[in-house]
């Protein structure tokens, strides 16, 4: 049986990251865009933990801890923004939020 090395995790992480990025780029529902961002963060976290294990250094796990905390803060603010936008625009379609149009 082949051995599971850190490359396997890199591959998985890249796949998840790409899927998340596609979600961000292609969906119009702001909430799903947000969730896709979480997925991308998660892919990065997976890489951190995998390399923490590979390099035998616990610092990677500490960084994941920070990423999770920041993600929590980001989600709180982001969802509050979405709720606020929904109240004024009655839509969470991000294509309708285009006030910055040139």
């Amino acid at each position, binding site marked *: 049986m082949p051995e599971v090395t850190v490359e396997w995790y890199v591959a998985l992480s890249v796949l998840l990251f790409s899927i998340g*990025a596609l979600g*961000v*780029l*292609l969906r*119009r529902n702001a909430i799903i865009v947000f969730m896709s961002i979480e997925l991308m963060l998660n892919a990065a976290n997976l890489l951190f933990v995998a390399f923490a294990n590979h390099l035998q250094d616990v610092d990677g796990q500490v960084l994941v801890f920070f990423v999770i905390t920041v993600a929590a803060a980001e989600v709180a603010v982001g969802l509050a923004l979405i709720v606020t936008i929904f109240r004024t625009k009655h839509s969470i379609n*991000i*294509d309708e*939020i*285009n*006030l*910055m*149009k*040139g």
Partner: protein
Amino acid sequence: MNAFGLAPLILVFPVIGLLLNGFFGRRFVDADRKTGEKLSGGFASVMALSSFAIAVLMFFSLRSHEFHAEVINLFNWIVVPSAKLQIPWAIQVDTLSVTMMMVVTGVGSLIHIYAIGYMHGDPNFSRFFTYLNLFLFFMLILVTGNNFLMLFVGWEGVGLCSYLLIGFWFDRVDKNGLPMNANAGRKAFVANRVGDLAMILAMILMFWTFGTLEFNTVFQSAVELFEEGHMVHFGLFSATLPAVLTAVTALFLMGAAGKSAQIPLYIWLPDAMAGPTPVSALIHAATMVTSGIYLIVRSNVLFEIVRASGELLFGIVSSADLVAYTGAATALVAGLIAFTQFDIKKVLAYSTVSQLGFMIAAAGMGAYVAAMFHLITHAFFKGLLFLGSGSVIHGMEHGHHHLAHGDDHHDDDFDPQDMRTMGGLRHKMNSTFIVYTIGALALSGIFPLAGFWSKDEILAHGGEHNFAVYLMLTIAAFCTAFYMGRQLQMVFFGKPRHAAAEHAEESSPLMVIPLWILAGLSVVGGFLLNLPFLTESLAEANHNHPTGIFLALEGWLEHSIQAFHLSEEGIVHLPHTPIVFSPMVAGLSTVLAVGALLLAFKLVYRDRPQTADERDPLEKIPFVWKFFAALPFETLFMKGFIPLFNKASHWLGHTLDGTIWHDFVHERVIRDNFVGFASFSADVLDTNGVDGLVNGSAKAVKRLANLIRRSQTGYARNYALSVFLGAVALVVYFVYMAN
């Protein structure tokens, strides 16, 4: 456990408080006076207390770290690669700086709390706390910096805060319509500049000699160069290292004289009493004025090298000894001046100058630990005395207010700080009386209060090593006890000499509680610091000095006063006193202090002035009074120096600058030619050449911008796509091309 990583927070907390009070404090206070004041003052106090907590944390961290200094690098501040100049913004946590941190934040927090009560109702309540936090911030930079430049930043910053706070009530005018508080602030600022100039020169010299300004590097290389007998070259000249260090240390003395109010620059300190009383307590008694002592103690290595080299300043006196003499002379002179003051705060101000003289003298004699010890205890009892006097003033104002409302008794000339209008306050303000007495006795050096231990350590050292200094300091100590006895008697005993004093009331608990805490510290401070508080250092001190149970503070501080170790290695000869507690000296000074107190109490001021118009008993001895009253160099300064200076500046300003430079060189030579050229370029060059160019390029930019504008679709996803494009491009680059 160590928590050195948290050290930056000690600077962050005051900044938070300062920003909050600076931006929102006024709104809070204006919106709702009562809660606004609580919020504004409370927040500032909490920030100060948080800093204190960090300082305590640093203390325990050091303990568990075996007292080894720790430097926390935050970032590189100034980097000039060509000059090999690299000055980091780094925090040095060692026993000395932690001692200062604890004193500054501890006493500072108490004063913050006190100030909430004291400043109650002031229209600029939140501005005051903004300044207090700003001060705390700069003072902490001063004591935590690991190089002379950071120290200088703090040094200037506290000077600024001192200026702002002395002139806090800048709109008040005296009888002649002059803005007295603003002037006092200006005076302090200018007097400090002299010292700052010396500091800058000293830093330039040091940087020239050692190529760095970091404490540890400077001290190490100073020792190495001293042992090598290195010569310092200044272009054509060259000088021996001790000579350069003599200059540096003399300049340090000058800087310290400015900040710590020594002869001849002490004139600003008594005037600084124009500020609110918490300021006087915090800045002009407990913390800022001690920065000169901190500087000298911090650079002890340089002073000791000068002492060991035997190099003399102008061939007369070693700069280290000069420090000692300056301090002793200041202690004596200021102690004498204090006799003639009638303003309750000015007596304390001169007393502060005198006590600072003690510390400087101690540092000059090489008794660094004693200097620091006196600095700490002095912060306790002088803070206490100032706050107590603030409480008295508050009470008197209250009484006066009561009068003004009670009947139509208007008394515009009433000065709530004049001791001649007080008397008998011990019945009205019981708590204040008790704590004030404790403070006064501690200051006079009565056993077993804090002042006794620290002052005797200095005196004992003087008795051992420098008899002249010892003599002056002993007389100064006698004076201290005398004027404190005088003040106690005039303020608290006898009958009230003014209607306001009869209606004085005790201050609010918010003010009295910090007083009690400080009183407690004044009582036990002497024990706490030098008795078995620090178990490990006690053991170590016992090990080093068989007789030294009183040397816990020394055991603690010797980890950052390098001269101790250099002295053991025989490089310098620190005049070290193994037995700091000398019964002879202690006995003599106690007898003198008690005698002075009794003299003031029972003899001279027994028949104290019964009314405000009566003369002070000392005034009956005309010579003494005139002499003491003339001692303030103030008079000399105003009568002698200022007119001369005015004349010189008038000549410089009017004749040299006005007639020659302005009228001739500027008007005729430079201006006329310039105007001619300018009109040519304005009328011809500009309208045709430049405008055409500018308008043309503006049009071009506009067309381009219209093109680019289309790419801004306003769709977040398009932007995200470009970000993703960039990210992928970077990945491709790093994978394929980076190596």
